[in-house]
């Protein structure tokens, strides 16, 4: 066995990485997003996407939705560390494949191309609650709401059809049914 030259131990076996959606309710105060994001970067956790906005104007509560991946113990740490932050009220955690949870991302696509290609493009977007937001002689801007992987796929399909610009949000999530997360 070769001798270790480090004052630290070798890494142990890693668990299997899973995708999770972490929802954090925070006081909407200066620096709160930096605290949450800083915790992720400081401890080496991933952020795949992030969505944040105030959801309660009276109580100044913002809801932050973070898509992350990590081993079960890392996900557990993320939750516990988040709960320690002073402006954090509650933390919810959902697996990305949880059937009881709705996830949606919103994307805007600008397509510049011939009429034929634009019609094709419009057609592929159709099943993702698409709306044409703006139209010109040779272009349109279309809005879709879909899952992350569906939007990834759409980008691939739209590229040869004249996609020139993409703007997309992070995922937002909500439980199905009448229950809310407490």
């Amino acid at each position, binding site marked *: 066995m070769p001798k270790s030259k480090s004052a630290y131990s070798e890494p142990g076996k890693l668990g299997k990485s899973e995708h999770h959606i972490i929802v954090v309710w925070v006081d909407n105060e200066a620096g709160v997003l930096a605290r949450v994001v800083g915790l992720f970067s400081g401890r080496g956790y991933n952020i795949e996407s992030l969505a944040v906005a105030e959801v309660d104007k009276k109580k100044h509560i913002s809801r932050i939705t973070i898509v992350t991946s990590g081993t079960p*113990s890392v996900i557990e740490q993320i939750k516990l560390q988040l709960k320690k932050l*002073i402006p954090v009220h509650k933390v919810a955690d959902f697996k990305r494949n949880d059937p009881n949870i709705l996830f949606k991302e919103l994307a805007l696509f600008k397509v510049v191309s011939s009429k034929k290609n634009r019609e094709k493009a419009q057609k592929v977007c159709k099943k993702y609650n698409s709306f044409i937001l703006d139209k010109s002689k040779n272009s349109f801007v279309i809005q879709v709401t879909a899952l992350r992987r569906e939007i990834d796929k759409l980008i691939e399909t739209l590229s040869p059809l004249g996609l020139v610009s993409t703007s997309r949000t992070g995922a937002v999530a909500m439980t199905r049914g009448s229950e809310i997360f407490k």
Partner: protein
Amino acid sequence: MGKLISGAEIVFKVLEHHKVEHIFGYPGGAVLPIYDELKNHKTIKHILARHEQGAGHAAEGYARSSGKPGVLLVTSGPGATNAVTALTDAYMDSVPLVCISGQVPTHLIGTDAFQECDTTGITRPCTKHNWLVKDVNDLAKVMDLAFEVATTGRPGPVLVDIPKDIQFKKTNFVLKSSNKKKLNGKSKPNGKISSSDLDKVINLMKKSSKPIFYTGGGVINSGPEASKSLRELVSITGFPITSTLQGLGAYPGDDPLFLGMLGMHGTYEANNSMYSCDLMINIGARFDDRITGKVDEFSPKSKKIHIDIDPSSIGKNIKVDLAVVSDVGSFLKALNKRIKEKHKDFLNSNKQNISKWWKDIDKWRQKKSLNFKNSKEVIKPQYAVQRLYELSKNKDTFITTEVGQHQMWAAQHYKFNKPNRWMTSGGLGTMGYGLPAAVGVQIAHPDKLVVDIAGEASVLMTMQEMSTAVQYKLPIKIFILNNQYMGMVRQWQELLHEKNYSESYTAALPDFVKLAEAYGCVGIQATKPDELDEKINEMINTKEPVIFDCRVDPAENCYPMIPSGKPHNQMLLGPEDEKEEVTDEGKTLV
């Protein structure tokens, strides 16, 4: 409508409300209104450090030796950045600190003004929370919350950044301290310890034939009552107990049930017991990597119980079988009560059960892993610590340390019998901690003997604080184990980097005796083992601060030692073991 008072005065009103008697700090432009206000508050004494890091460590020493939060006052820009090391140190070792920093006036924030820095940005990852106060009406509330956050839950540092114009601005002073019990400044989830948890713990204890208590700094942080309860728990169970570096003193170091410190430089018996036990009861420790070594092979056969006030400490490094989130003091009290009520004869009925275990432990003890080859010609550093212990143990002595070999020798050979007597930088490992920490300890305990067991390299990092000690007539004793090397670096280089002593030797060290005299205190030097006792006594009996230059063997290594990446049952006991390791790679030692 009451009298309007300034932001600076509000700061002191809140300090008075929290019965703060000492603040450690250093003035500067952005904090001058607060310094101006100092004269009107006679119950609060300011200790002028020589560097903000020194002020921070002094506040830490004050806090850890007294159980009260340490308060630190610094200016903007470099004042705040100099405090960062101390804040991080306090964060790692769970020391309650309230740092008040001046900031440039609000209208200049963001303009790269003179001595401006993003203080809340820089200190965000090294505080439990921080605040930039932009409205004087928020100041009282924020200052009050700062104390609450620093001292509740797992203690730690907080910072309040106050722009200069806010310090001048006037408002009504209203302080509404809430009576609700809170944790980390948030409403407490549920602090009750369920009897079913207690029964589960007791059940595991009864079933175990190889139990061990592994206790940490959480017991100290929980207050002196927690240490009392821990002693009671050990006496009514008869279980062996080991402690982390930070937990030393919670249980008497000279008690036969105490196995000594565990971890990288812990005793053979403590580490082997941790490896072989079938039940590990972790009370207020955090499975730090200096303790666990290789995680995959850490105590493979044991059930593990973890009691901690910080939920994020549980399951972070090591999976446990039973976790209780609680203040360890209240948990220990409840557990003792339960055992005494329901299992009156636990000790005797369980004696048979663990007698074989104690025999194993005694066998490990026979190795006498802390032994070293003494010398008549040169002072061995271990011998120096042992003599210091013998000559000061009858006084209520407070020990601080720097970081390195001397720190480990102090932890191994100085036996602590009371909590809050041992102040060392464990988590962050901050060289230069011990001298300013001793300043803070002596402020909190003016009549006690306070010794910084130091290394010559560490102590030079914050040597300027001797000037503080002299100014306030603090008779701290700086006991330097001078081996002319950064000893722990040298040791690692010898063992792991083919004796390439890259930059670990300090040429041109100062003459410490003359240095002491230059600061206006007393210098003592010892070079031979037979003069050590006399010189140590001279140090103890000196009424002024002392720098003691104890010239020790420069080649001595700190053993026992768990080599990196090895489990607990593969320790190096001394230089002979090391040779075997090199010539016969792959062969395990035990």
